[in-house]
């Protein structure tokens, strides 16, 4: 009998969804950094005021928000893969499920803090 492999801790509970999220988030991260690099090269005499105006503009706020969300999603899919590869019964014995769940929850909480902190920094208006 064929049984479906399931996992409630993967981002989309579906391999195709996770695969797609990882590719799309990689493109967002890549485009952001190439764009940022281009801006920094084009602004050799960049001062704080110009930088603040640039990074605080609504298009950059949206782009940076996308970056933060993409980094979080990309990190989760990648580290979920690492934990399900290496923190298994084969390497850790009976305690594997507990250890894996704890590590995954710590990663999830850190990413949540990172996203919230990022959003406050981007949209906080400081």
């Amino acid at each position, binding site marked *: 009998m*064929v049984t*479906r*492999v*399931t*996992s409630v801790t*993967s981002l989309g*509970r*579906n*391999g*195709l*969804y*996770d*695969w*797609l999220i990882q590719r799309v988030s990689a493109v967002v991260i890549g485009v952001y950094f190439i764009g940022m690099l281009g801006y920094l090269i084009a602004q050799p005499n960049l001062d704080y005021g110009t930088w603040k105006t640039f990074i605080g503009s609504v298009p950059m706020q949206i782009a940076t928000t996308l970056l933060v969300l993409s980094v979080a999603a990309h990190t989760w899919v990648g580290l979920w*893969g690492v934990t*399900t*590869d*290496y923190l*298994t019964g*084969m390497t850790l014995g009976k305690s594997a499920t507990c250890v894996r769940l704890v590590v995954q929850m710590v990663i999830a909480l850190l990413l949540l803090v990172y996203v919230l902190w990022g959003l406050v920094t981007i949209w906080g208006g400081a």
Partner: protein
Amino acid sequence: MKVSIYRYNPDTDREPTMKEYDVDTQGKDLMVLDVLNLVKEMDPSLGFRRSCREGVCGSDGMNINGKNGLACITSLSSVAPGVKEGKKALVLRPLPGLPVVRDLVVDMTMFYNQYEKVQPYLQNSTPAPAIERLQSPEERAKLDGLYECILCACCSTSCPSFWWNPDKFLGPAALLQGYRFLADSRDTATEERLARLDDPFSLFRCHGIMNCVSVCPKGLNPTRAIGHIRSMLLERGI
């Protein structure tokens, strides 16, 4: 030449050991299986599988100086520089990642379980024609590079994703066979086959490192087949 062979009998040995043998190949560029047969004459207790001795049956898959391959079609000169000349030892271990039954013989149950999951047989829900289900030459050509797999397990046991999750990740051999039936114009179970593959493990645990392509003794490309399945899943899912 020096031959170092993995020896382990789970019934009597506490742990595996590497045993060294001196084999006289008379300078010939023998196949690894020929060397094993010479060792077997010296030490009949050595266990290994072999059958056709010409790369068709897939019985003698093993790890040869760090790379999986079929002993019967791997010549000493192709193993590594210096092995044929006796300057470097020939090192033989069982296929990695599978339980050892004895010496170079592994338990292939996990490998066959994954093969079974892809339902490697033609499924067609339409009424059977009077003679046979015909294919155009173009449709038949799509099966080239897929049907030739001999299930030696060299690919799956060289894949780290299969090592870590042999119960969840189907492995390159099973996925190649899975695509062989997805690509077959006579098979009508495409949707059911794809529906079983879109979880996070069965197919998507492949990270494309291509060890499978590097070791396949038949020169097949499971990574490409996995990519084709992924494209089919993408078209189906979006």
